[in-house]
């Protein structure tokens, strides 16, 4: 019988303790897997959202990202200049302000009002109705439409708050073209969007200001960002990769830290407990091991038996921990996503193959390290004395 088969029979012979050991490893492994998913989850999710917006490069007035940096003045001219670069395919200016929307006779609701200028690429997906096509049209997100009890085709009064001086801006009538989904919508966040010109109209200003300029590169975002930086050295052009890097440096660190701490604690916990399990188990079977040695089992063979038992417990537990961890991750993700202003499509726990590899590596190392002490006991076992003690007792 090979070593693995023998170790398997040892485990099967003591089903209660083996099952509990495996379940314990599964629970600990699930937690470890989740912490690995959490360590990079937010960044991967944010990266995915930025990519899904369809833009490669963001041009902002300062290094502050994300955040309300100073406005870009004369954004239309800036967009036109950037659009002229050979490494750039299309350019969109994006501005956000607060606005009160009100249906005739209804209550007003405060929304985040986007104004998008430039190409026809839109940072939203229309889910009903149609996209904005004519002057003074807007799209609403589902929550805003629900709050306003409005549908495509309805008219709404828009009062935009673009500057603090505009305490009583003139109301403008807009028509709802459709209901749209914005990638960065948080639950209960009311949003609306129109063209940059119409937002400026609602603000009673000349069009031109923008929070940032979003760029679709011709295929090489790095080259596009470099060309924009060369053209406008006073501005900051960052690729999605660089934007995520900024996020990594300035925010999102809490979950990475907690993930590191909990991963360390989890692995230590697993190591300690599997070591104790195996050691107690081996101590109870010293007579049996001595008998095996006496009938011809080599020292290497009995040591390998212990190692294989450890590998089997950790291997089976680790295998079970993956589906268990995935279910647990969904639950924990649901808890964390109740934080205010977290976009619906942002996730804290995101699967990546690297997490799986690290999980396997850590559990593998745990299995080996946990078996070191019991293997040492077995290797140094005095055969004759142990058999004698066993017989006398």
């Amino acid at each position: 019988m090979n070593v693995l088969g023998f170790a398997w029979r040892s485990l099967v012979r003591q089903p209660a303790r083996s099952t509990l050991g495996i379940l314990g490893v599964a629970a600990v492994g699930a937690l470890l897997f989740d912490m690995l998913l959490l360590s990079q989850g937010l960044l991967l999710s944010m990266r995915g959202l930025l990519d899904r917006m369809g833009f490669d490069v963001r041009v902002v007035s300062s290094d502050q990202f994300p955040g309300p940096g100073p406005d870009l003045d004369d954004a239309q001219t800036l967009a036109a200049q950037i659009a002229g670069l050979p490494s750039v395919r299309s350019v969109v200016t994006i501005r956000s302000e607060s606005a009160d929307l009100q249906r005739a006779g209804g209550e007003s609701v405060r929304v985040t009002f986007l104004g998008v200028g430039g190409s026809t690429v839109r940072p939203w997906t229309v889910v009903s109705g149609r996209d904005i096509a004519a002057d003074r049209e807007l799209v609403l997100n589902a929550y805003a439409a629900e709050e306003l009890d409005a549908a495509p085709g309805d008219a709404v009064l828009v009062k935009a708050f673009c500057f603090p001086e505009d305490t009583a801006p003139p109301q403008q009538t807009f028509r709802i073209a459709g209901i749209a989904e914005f990638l960065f919508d948080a639950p209960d966040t009311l949003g609306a969007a129109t063209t940059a010109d119409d937002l400026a109209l609602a603000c009673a200003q000349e069009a031109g200001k923008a929070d940032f300029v979003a760029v679709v590169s011709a295929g090489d975002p790095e080259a596009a960002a470099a060309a924009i930086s060369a053209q406008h050295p006073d501005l900051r052009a960052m690729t999605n990769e660089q934007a995520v890097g900024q996020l990594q440096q300035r925010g999102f660190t809490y979950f990475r830290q907690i993930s590191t701490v909990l991963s360390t604690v989890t692995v230590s916990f697993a190591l300690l407990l599997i070591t104790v399990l195996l050691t107690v188990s081996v101590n109870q079977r010293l007579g049996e091991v001595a008998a095996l040695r006496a009938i011809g089992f080599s020292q290497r063979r009995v040591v390998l038996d212990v190692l294989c038992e450890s590998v089997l417990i950790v291997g089976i537990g680790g295998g079970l921990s993956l589906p268990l961890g995935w279910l647990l991750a969904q639950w924990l993700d649901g808890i964390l996503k109740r934080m205010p202003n977290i976009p619906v499509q942002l996730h804290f726990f995101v699967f990546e193959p690297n997490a799986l590899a690290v999980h396997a590596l850590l559990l593998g190392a745990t299995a080996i390290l946990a078996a070191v002490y019991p293997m040492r006991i077995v290797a140094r076992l005095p055969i004759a004395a142990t058999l004698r003690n066993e017989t006398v007792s």
Partner: protein
Amino acid sequence: MKRRTFLLALSTTLIVAFSSAQTPEPPSILVSRQLAETEGLAEGDVVRLALDAAGAGARPFRIAGVYEPTPDPMRLGTVPREVRMHLPDLLALTSDDDAPTGAEHVARINIALADPANAHAFARSVNGRAPGVFARRAAATGSASTFVVLERFHLAIAVVTIVAATVFLLALTIMLVDERRETVGVLRLIGLPAPRILLQVLLEGLLIASAGALFGLALAWVSEGLINRFFQWRYNTALIFVQVTPRVAALCVAIAVPLGASATLAASWALMRRGALRLARR
């Protein structure tokens, strides 16, 4: 409004200039500890603040003190380089020279109500009476609060950890009880009834669980200081990351001790159902 505040906070040019006797006493400001540390500022220093990086229109201010910003978990990783000043001084610094008097603006007004329970009604009343002003409750105290969510997350992690620990504990106690199978068999053979042995096992379990819980608490108290010091250094914040409160300690003991004792009892229960001779291997 948000942009003007931002400009002031980030584009502020800070030039330390020691006060000169002939100029009038500049208005006083407070600077955040982090800003004071990075710029080498101290109480009594005179600094010049401007809205743009070039320092145009800079005005002098005297540092009246250094304050610790209220720790904000949402701004973890961002070092608060902040200045606090009296509102008239801020308006004087930010208003256009040609703006008529009385046209100054503020971003928001915080109001402390005599009865906080009236916050919603008060906000509705203000919104109805003052067009262009948006009133709302100052803080989310319900389930959406970040702190509440983080607490739930930590609780969920704790539950999973307890489940894993319980499973391991059961496995260990089963092995330990099994190791004492012969002793239990002999005790049964000399006349001790099963409930008496179970009571002994339960007391042993309680003792071990209590000792383990106390050791765990001691470990938590020691690691509390270390973890807080590390993360406070890492993020340059006064935020307290770990706090072992009497309530938390009591909760841990209340969970650990019964759990440990129950695991021992559960593991022994199966043993007691076997015959004494079989246990003693006779």
